[in-house]
């Protein structure tokens, strides 16, 4: 479970996120959407323990990220949009490395399954420099999934994946949620969010504009009834007419 309470982040004078509170329950997939600069990545990076909140509390699997960051980070995985890999470690060595970092005793038995699931089995002794962009992304995802995190943070998870990879990635996200992980994913692909997410959190200029399932969001807003998420999103962020010809 991910709990965010009154979270704010300032960069100098810029208020990137303002008084944000929400919960991602175990087994739930929440989509984080918003225009560029809305504060999505700052929110994800703060929950991942990369950026320190200016105000507020973040708890991962019950552990306060500020007070007990190591225990909190043990329970989460952050997969950034741009895969960050070490050039001099092979595919399998990356997973062994992550296994030790997170103390995964079953790593030797889990690694082959993960490699097969992400179609990397034939690349286990290959260095990242020899992998395509999509495969590098898959390796980053495998590293994030090895320790079976209770909280999974995904920033644009489908970037660089081929159609089959996208389908498999979507299945993986669903499977992880069904296994009990709390999944928070940020994406501009609203059809993906609509398809995968139980609830959607819409951010605009660092503030929460709406949070809930799509029926919950449109309830009380008759003008949004029956519209796809893309239209709901554009109307909520006040850009409904921007894309029209």
């Amino acid at each position, binding site marked *: 479970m991910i709990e965010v309470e009154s979270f704010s982040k300032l960069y100098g004078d810029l208020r990137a996120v303002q008084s944000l509170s929400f919960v991602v329950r175990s087994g739930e997939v929440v989509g984080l959407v918003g225009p560029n600069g809305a504060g999505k990545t700052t929110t994800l*990076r703060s929950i*991942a*323990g*990369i*950026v*320190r909140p200016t105000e507020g509390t973040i708890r991962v699997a019950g552990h306060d990220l500020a007070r007990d*960051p*190591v*225990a*909190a*980070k*043990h329970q*989460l995985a*952050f997969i*950034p949009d741009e895969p*960050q*890999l*070490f*050039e*001099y*470690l*092979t595919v399998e*060595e990356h997973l*062994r*490395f*992550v*296994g*030790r*970092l*997170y*103390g*995964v*005793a*079953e*790593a*030797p038995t889990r690694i082959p399954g993960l490699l097969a699931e992400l179609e990397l089995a034939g690349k286990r*002794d*290959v*260095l*990242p*420099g020899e992998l395509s962009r999509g495969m590098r992304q898959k390796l980053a995802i495998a590293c994030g999934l090895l320790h079976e995190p209770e909280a999974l943070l995904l920033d644009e998870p489908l970037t660089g994946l081929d159609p089959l990879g996208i389908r498999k990635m979507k299945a993986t996200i669903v499977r992880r949620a069904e296994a009990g992980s709390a999944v928070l994913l940020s994406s501009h692909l609203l059809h993906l969010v609509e398809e995968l997410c139980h609830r959607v959190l819409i951010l605009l200029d660092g503030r929460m504009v709406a949070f809930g399932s799509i029926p919950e969001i449109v309830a009380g807003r008759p003008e949004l009834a029956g519209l796809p998420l893309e239209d709901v999103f554009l109307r909520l962020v006040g850009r409904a007419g921007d894309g029209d010809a």
Partner: protein
Amino acid sequence: MTGALGYLTFRSVANRVSRQAARLRTPRYLLALVLGAGWLGFIFWGQQPPPPGAAAGAWVVPAGSLITLGLVLWIWVSGGDRAALAFSPAEVTFLFPAPLPRRALVRYKLLRTQLLVLFNVAIWMVVAGRRPGLSPLLRACAIWTLITTLALHRLGAALVRTSLTQHGRFGIRHRVLSIGLVVAAGGALAWGLHDVAPGVLAAARLGEPALRDAVSRALEHPALAVVLWPFRAIVGPLGADGPAEWRAAMLPALGLLALHYVWVMRSDAAFEEAAAEASLARARRRDTRKASGMLVRHAGGAPSAPLFALAPLGWPATALFWKNLAAVLRRRRARNILLGLAAGGAAAAAMSGDPENTLARMAGALALTWLGFVAALGPQWVRNDLRGDLAHADLLRSYPLPGWAIVASETAASAATLTLLELALAVFVYLCYLQDPSLALSPGERLGLLGGVALLMPPINFMALLLYNGAAVLFPAWVRIGAAATGVEVLGQRLLTTTVFLILLALLLMAPAAAGLGAYEALAGVLGGWALGPAVAAGLAILAAEAVLLVRRLGHVFERMDAAAVRA
């Protein structure tokens, strides 16, 4: 279009300067700048005024020309100088498809290099600006001419090397003049050295005056005189005693600079191709954040296994140590180094007992010199630590590890690498002098000395590298992340950095040294020579306490570090 390149250069510099200036609002950066400026002022104003009638240094030209020759040889021998051609990914994206003549790109590259050259001229002026002989302006011009010529040579050499590797026989035909000159110079140098080496080596045993005379005579050897002429010419203005002599010396120096400029500009046909490849290599390195110039290279196929297997359970930070060690040393490379060391060491040890055979002693002296260089410069060179990994700061910070554990394990990896390198050299030196009867030390003392190196170098290296890693954590916007900068144009910066860090290390070692000496003084009366044991232990205990304090403090800073400030 060249106006656009000028605009790009000007705006890039202006924005960079304003960004760095904005950082001074952070007290830590401001304090560092004030201290740094104060230290530079101390160096500049603290130089002793020249004694009346002092010569500019009869050794400047011969010593400078030999050092320059060494640098040029290194440029041609080493394979890393393609960095001289590299453009940033953004430059490749915007400039290469743009309707620009190749010469404009070459000029742009030279212009960018000039910014670095001018910065380093300023540093050299601070370090050596008040020496006797020349006014600061004339000295600055002399230094600029020397560094610019060498920078152009580096660029030209990189073009020739790339042309050869890319075009094979065609490349050789295309570069026949350049290659012919290099081969002729190499041959003449070998001939000259063959003739003069015995005399210089014999003089070295007789003391400094004899050595100076022998070197002076050696430089007059016809072959060496011809090969060294260009080097004497570009160093000449630095050794001038006054404006008239400077003007006379500047003419051939500027002539050589002009020749180099023509050489590089005529190479423009190969430039774009070579630059594109070099830039691609650099982009790849940047993408994956190569940590050091000595990373394990993989020509193809799977890399060999890391030095040790990583168990899934145990102290998690060991994983970072394992990862960073695997970056520079894997089993195949370790095995090759050990085999080479065993073969070379065995041969040297066998020869060391023969008083007539000087080969082992020469090899030992070279290895000892190299060991000194590695001890002083190694912490800048070996960078498989936070200086490589800070580019992955986001990833590191998402790991379930406290900041101090990350700092400690990252530093330990480069300290282990540096120590292994030093130990290999120390063992080789020991074997070279194993049976040398002329050495004043007994075999037991020699072994003790080797043991001392093995005992003291790991903690000292750890402290030295902790300082470098500390600088990266404290000043991520100022410290270069990834491979160290190379090239003659940054020698001034490197000299200054090394000096600063050596002074800081010396300060850190003062308390442990005092504790060790104190313990020895206190116990020597009772234990005699055995007091050395507790004395070393006392010194190491203080050193360990300092290391723990520093690691904890840096870990705290790392946890709060602004990852966006990291200078990629």
